[in-house]
């Protein structure tokens, strides 16, 4: 029986289907693990909402758009600054410079809905706010407008408002209809983001110039500078990133994604949709890529190189970068060999990272989990796990406590909400959603992650955790 009902779940036995223990004797090597379903109420999930999925993950990384959240003040407040760490540079594709650096981290607009808006509808207020916002930040290249629970429930028609305002303001005004309650997780928001951008933006603008080596880099959000790492590799290979979706991107880039020669899909959970749609409509093929860990990174650079006939350049990059990191990799492996790890990312990172962490750091992956991963993702986790590894969809805090007890991970890669909880159990935790001292992607990023894992495990605090009643022998006596 590959499924597992944890002791803490005896009152919510539905959870059994979400928790799988890898057993390679399974006929198909994997097993349909339940996922992407609604969380059981009251079970202390780590999941977020659809609004977080679209604004927090997809659109919040764009440098030159203004976000208008149609909501009571709370959603706007929570949408500000982004919960991830998405830096942007002010440089624009046409060589100009956007007037505010990290604009995406600095400003957000909301309609501040109150009781009477709830009663009488908020569409007029929304229009007014969009006008004001446009006046306040006239230099933005587009305005994105977000539905929330409140406006979803009162039934405001955001598309109609945005259409009207786009005509009035002469710049793109785009509605994202992903109210918080939509879908079981933030993944619904990713989905809405993808479709909206495809339907309303892709194909509507032309790039200032194109080359034969233009790519879309899709699902790369520049968390803590991830994109800037990859950018260097592509530059070295002579490949031009025409459009990012959406890390350090401009609004314009989204509009001319149809002009690339190839799409690369980096985060396959949040962004495959848009790549597929672009392929279907515009014939731009896409590759699913993985740049986490030296081997995947090398493999995928090779694949891209091959596609563009840049095999030599790819090899050169790989060689150069590997040489740089090898000594550090060796050091961290010597320190981390055999240490038990639980990777609890949002989704894909749990399977991106499991092999590289085993291979390059010698660590023992004892548990994997995802917050909003879908079936294909769990298949990959299952495939990549060794026998006995526990794989959990949407783990709740009580389950986490039990897993720590039973599997005794020596480190957990997780989110900030769980981090301090694990600490209280005496287990170090490194933030895998937005990193500690990232970036974590690419060759050097993997070393950064290794270092963060290393420092977390070797933090002397863990050894000093409990007061010793007896003076240690080699002490100051």
């Amino acid at each position: 029986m590959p499924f597992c009902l944890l002791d803490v779940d005896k009152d919510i036995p539905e959870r059994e289907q979400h928790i799988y223990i890898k057993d390679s004797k399974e006929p198909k090597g994997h097993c349909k693990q339940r996922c992407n379903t609604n969380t059981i109420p009251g079970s202390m999930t780590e999941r977020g909402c659809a609004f977080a999925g679209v604004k927090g993950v997809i659109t919040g990384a764009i440098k030159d758009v203004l976000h208008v959240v149609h909501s009571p003040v709370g959603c706007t407040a929570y949408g500000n600054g982004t919960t991830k760490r998405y830096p942007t540079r002010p440089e624009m594709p046409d060589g100009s410079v956007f007037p505010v650096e990290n604009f995406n981290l600095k400003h957000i607009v909301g309609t501040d809905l109150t009781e009477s808006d709830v009663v009488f509808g908020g569409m007029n207020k929304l229009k007014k706010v969009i006008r004001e916002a446009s006046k306040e930040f006239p230099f933005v290249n587009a305005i994105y407008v977000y539905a929330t629970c409140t406006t979803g429930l009162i039934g405001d028609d955001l598309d109609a408002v945005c259409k009207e305002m786009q005509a009035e303001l002469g710049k793109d005004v785009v509605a994202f209809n992903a109210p918080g309650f939509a879908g079981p997780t933030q993944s619904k928001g990713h989905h809405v983001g993808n479709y909206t951008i495809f339907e309303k933006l892709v194909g509507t603008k032309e790039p200032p110039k194109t080359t034969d080596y233009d790519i879309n880099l899709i699902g790369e959000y520049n968390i803590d500078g991830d994109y800037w790492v990859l950018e260097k590799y592509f530059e070295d290979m002579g490949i031009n990133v025409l459009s990012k979706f959406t890390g350090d991107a401009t609004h314009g880039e989204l509009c001319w994604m149809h002009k690339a020669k190839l799409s690369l899909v980096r985060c396959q959970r949040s962004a495959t949709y848009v790549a597929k749609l672009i392929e279907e409509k515009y014939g731009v093929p896409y590759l699913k890529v993985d740049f986490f860990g030296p081997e995947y990174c090398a493999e995928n650079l090779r694949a891209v190189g091959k596609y563009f006939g840049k095999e030599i350049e790819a090899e050169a990059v790989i060689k150069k970068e590997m040489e740089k990191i090898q000594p550090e990799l060796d050091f961290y492996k010597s320190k981390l060999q055999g240490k038990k790890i639980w990777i609890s990312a949002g989704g894909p990172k749990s399977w991106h990272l499991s092999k590289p962490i085993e291979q390059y750091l010698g660590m023992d992956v004892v548990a994997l989990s995802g917050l909003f991963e879908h079936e294909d993702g769990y298949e990959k986790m299952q495939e990549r796990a060794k026998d006995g590894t526990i794989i959990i969809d949407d783990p709740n805090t009580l389950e986490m406590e039990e897993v720590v007890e039973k599997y005794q991970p020596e480190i957990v890669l997780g989110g900030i909400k769980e981090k301090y909880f694990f600490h209280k159990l005496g287990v170090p935790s490194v933030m895998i959603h937005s990193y500690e001292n990232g970036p974590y992607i690419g060759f050097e990023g993997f070393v950064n992650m290794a270092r963060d894992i290393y420092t977390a495990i070797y933090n002397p605090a863990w050894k000093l955790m409990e007061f010793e009643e007896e003076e240690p022998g080699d002490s100051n006596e």
Partner: protein
Amino acid sequence: MSELNVIKKERTAVINPIVTCQPLGAMYAVSGIERGMPLVHGSQGCSTFVRYGFARHFREPADIAVTSLHEDAAVFGGRKNLISGLGNLAARFKPDVMGVVTTCSSEIIGDDVAGFIKTAKVEIAKKMGEEAANKIKIVQINTPSFVEHQFKGYDNAIKAIVDTLAEPKDEENGKLNIIPGIVNPGDIREIKHMLSLMGVEGILLTDTSDPFDSPLRPSKADKNPYYQKGGTPLADLQDCANSLGTISLANYANSAPASLEKKYNMPSKVSEAPIGIQNTDSFIRTVKKFTGNDVTDEILDERGIVIDAMADVASRYLFGRKVAIYGDPSITVGMARFVAELGMIPKVVCTGVKNEYFVNDLKKVAKESDEDIDALFGQDLRALDVYLKENPVDLMIGSSDGRLMAKDLGIPLYRVGYPVYDRVGYQRRPIIGYNGALNLVDGITNTILDKYYETQDWKLQQ
């Protein structure tokens, strides 16, 4: 001079808000109950954003459950979610108190929360047995997100807790109810420290100090489930009906004192945060008045040490420097009064709320300090940003949400309030009371020295 110039928002839009919605205040309040568990009746974002925020600020876990409303609830109502949510939480966590916190969705859907809670109680009793079920108290807290802000949510929560749980007895307990407001663990510890120096036992309504700043001691921790240490015990909450009086240290938290006063004829006093000398003096006098206890030499010596620090550094380094203060309506007003006590000019005070107590409290500060104060009222950080571009100041005081603005403006930021996530330890350091004032004197002065004196470093030779 000494005018309060109230500048209201002219925009409809809110840009870079400095308030958030009601549920946060309620989640904060319930987190201060020992084995207390907030259950947010809404979408997952409603709890997750707040847990994220608490984790980031306190660097501690924040256990907040959610009923995970989805499309089906939007159509059929949240009955099933709330009842099963309460049931699951009760069975798996065995909390002492569950606080049901509503949101925009559950309020718009129009759920009969009171009715659902009744049903849930029955089901819990069926499952866990009458006795076990009776030990678990459920508090209904209505916090519609589209009305006011987190401070109102806090006020609603404290009132709901008191109204639901208080159990009058025939005798007074000799204690004092204290409503601290949305403050930091360090502040609550300072309140308790002051009370102990006055020989007074307090009932904190509620006490987030330990839950949001807990020791890392796995060997001693509550496990299966893990609970953070501390919080106000249920027994104390029940006993709050029998106290000598109620002091609210947040000008927005006046409903519970009023309710206690009305029901139990208990004297109460509501003020802005006791930040600085005069506000703390006033708090001490109220404690004395309600309890009859003397003001001890010990506490006056602590006061004397702040006065000493102020005498030594305020006129020399701080006098006449202009300050912008933003955030919480109670803390900002307290801070404004205190920076005036330091001889600084609280040039502009910005809050996101629109309540009159903010204006009234600030008028007093303007009068005392003999300075004109601009009050950005019901405003946001963007309004402050625009204001400061035209009217530069020497120092900003407020949360980390103003950090990038401060950096762009070239104005040093002294971090106060919630949230502070770009530096460490601020949650532990009080700003309330005499020791809080001492921290502020040191922190503000060092910020000024860093920025304005290091350029002529010989000046720091003595």
